[in-house]
């Protein structure tokens, strides 16, 4: 109302918080500059958050809890939106993100931004776990791309015996959020999971035990995964794979572009596919990606909403895909000719994203994951048996969820 008029009279500055983006600060700056050109009454200041998502989360929590009006637009991991919405820190965006438009988005991210019927953020870009493999090696030993975990193990073992100094399968096993993503993929692809049909939290079940056991076996029984995976994060594994020292790798899509760069040791030798599943079950990938929302305490909500709209618009998402390699959450973009030409790789991932599953959708996810991370870590390093770990998870999470009851 009056704000609109004010906005036209003086420029407002809105602050946009986000994690560091691939391609350096300039690419985003260019996009924002265009936004500023289109909206002369708005200036955008973008501020980069720390590397680790845990620290980013801590930043938001501490500031939002204190009602900080110091930033307007925030980028959020999929697992935070419900928590922030439940805490009442986000502005509902139903008005600028109508149900019709949501149709065009993948189901996973939409469900992640929806809390009690309203949307609190708009998906910005999307991620999901993938299997990277060495095309050249599989061809050399004429092995097919594995469709099941067991196949992956046997293929890896076979090649490892022939090739010297090569790891079989590397993934992210350090105690952090990435580990949860990895473990969930095994559980889902075994028919398990943490939340039952009725929405109850139920970790302790046969499928989950078997999945965890399998992960443990990857390292300690089949020995296709080196022990270093228990401390590896994305870049650790990407470096190893990128220097040609591994056959298979689980990672996010970002790695592809790096492998295909000039001078890469594996340029042209890398293939990408959906993650394997257990025999008789279907493959699953953990949904990742970032959403944009508006701070409830923002002094300029209207301007902030405009920025969110802009950044999640068809055009910007397309540009970010083409120029920076980010995967758009809009299905229709995968039909876009320009994008198909520029990033054929992204387009191929469509089926993966279609099937990507969100981690447990609960406002308490961050507390729960603090339980999951160490317990999973303990299970894959053999400090605890899978059953012990899952039992412990169940007990602790129940104590957390008791908060809800009053």
């Amino acid at each position: 109302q009056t704000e609109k008029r004010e906005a036209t009279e003086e420029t407002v500055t809105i602050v946009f918080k986000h994690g560091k983006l691939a391609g350096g600060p300039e690419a985003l700056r260019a996009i924002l500059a265009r936004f500023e050109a289109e909206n002369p009454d708005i200036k955008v200041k973008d501020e980069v958050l720390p590397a680790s998502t845990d620290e980013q989360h801590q930043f938001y929590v501490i500031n939002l809890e204190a009602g900080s009006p110091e930033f307007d637009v925030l980028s959020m991991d999929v697992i935070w939106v419900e928590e922030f919405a439940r805490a009442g820190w986000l502005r509902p965006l139903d008005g600028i993100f109508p149900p019709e438009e949501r149709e065009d988005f993948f189901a996973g991210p939409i469900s992640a931004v929806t809390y009690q019927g309203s949307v609190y953020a708009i998906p910005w870009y999307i991620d999901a776990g993938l299997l990277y493999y060495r095309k050249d090696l599989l061809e050399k030993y004429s092995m097919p791309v594995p469709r099941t975990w067991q196949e992956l193990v046997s293929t890896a073992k076979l090649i490892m015996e022939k090739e010297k100094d090569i790891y079989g399968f590397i993934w992210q096993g350090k105690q952090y959020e990435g580990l949860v993503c990895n473990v969930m993929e095994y559980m889902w692809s075994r028919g398990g999971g943490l939340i039952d049909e009725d929405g109850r939290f139920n970790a302790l079940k046969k499928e989950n035990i078997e999945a965890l056991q399998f992960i443990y076996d990857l390292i300690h029984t089949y020995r296709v995964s080196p022990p270093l995976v228990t401390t590896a994060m994305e870049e650790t594994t990407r470096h190893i794979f990128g220097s040609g020292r591994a056959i298979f790798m689980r990672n996010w899509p970002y790695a592809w572009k790096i492998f295909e760069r000039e001078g890469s040791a594996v340029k042209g030798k890398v293939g990408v596919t959906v993650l394997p599943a257990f025999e008789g079950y279907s493959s699953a990938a953990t949904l990742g990606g970032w959403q944009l929302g508006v701070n409830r305490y923002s002094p300029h909500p209207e301007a902030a909403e405009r920025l969110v709209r802009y950044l999640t618009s068809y055009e910007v998402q397309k540009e970010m895909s083409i120029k920076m390699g980010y995967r758009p959450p809009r299905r229709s973009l995968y039909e876009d000719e320009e994008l198909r030409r520029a990033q054929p790789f992204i387009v191929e991932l469509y089926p993966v994203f279609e099937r990507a599953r969100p981690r447990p959708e609960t406002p308490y996810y961050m507390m729960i994951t603090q339980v999951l991370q160490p317990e999973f870590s303990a299970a894959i390093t053999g400090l605890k048996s899978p059953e012990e770990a899952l039992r412990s998870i169940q007990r602790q999470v129940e104590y957390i969820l008791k908060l809800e009851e009053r």
Partner: protein
Amino acid sequence: MSRTLKKALNWLVLCVVVLWSVAPFVWQIITSFKPSAELATLPPLLPASPTLDNYISVFSDRPFGRIILNSLVVASLTTVLSILVGSLAAFGLAVLKPRGGYLFLGFVLTVSMFPPISTVSPLYIIIRELGLRDTVLALIITYTTFSLPLTIWILTNFFRSIPRELYLSARVDGCTSFQIFYRIFLPVAAPGLFATAILVFIFAWNEFLFALTFTSTVRARTVPVEIALFPGVHEMPWAEIAAASVIVTVPVVLLVFLFQRRIIEGLTAGAVKR
């Protein structure tokens, strides 16, 4: 002769000790000059094509200058405040000897043992309520307080070592207590003040827990937090971290080299006398 053998052994231990102390830091310096492409290959140890890029990008990609400024402001103001309040108290304790002074000193010592983690949550709430979140002021206040026990303890020892006759003499010459404090004791204890100041400065420059908790933006973030929270996509930019580390350690290294005598004096003032 055994004397020479003993000397040789001494030298050996000495070399090992020095090497052991310095080597990690030297490695950090070397790393800071490596282009990121060379990080992942270990031999050679030295960068094949040393570069200043890491140093440049620390400042160009990040508001690192501002953060150093924050740290400088926090550390210097903390030092000044802590010395001010601490030397007053120490003078009171050591020279005027009020009844119950020992209790107070005991209280101060007890406080010095408080684990910061035990008070960080209420302090966070208090600071938030006072609207001081993410300000250097919040850090200055907490640092001053947490360095006070050290300051009081060391300065009390220093003041005690000043002959009481100086106090009596100045009294007879007509000074008030406060005049004696700043005209006689402060100047005479200058070396002690200086030693303490350096310790407090180093403490404030290095503190992490409170800084991590009470600050959230470049407005008040300090150097250790910045280094701990160095942003990167998916992984640590090791070379940049190394460069940043080298930059922020420079003041500390300078202090140590210029004033090692005083630092050691200050450190040991509390532990060894008595």
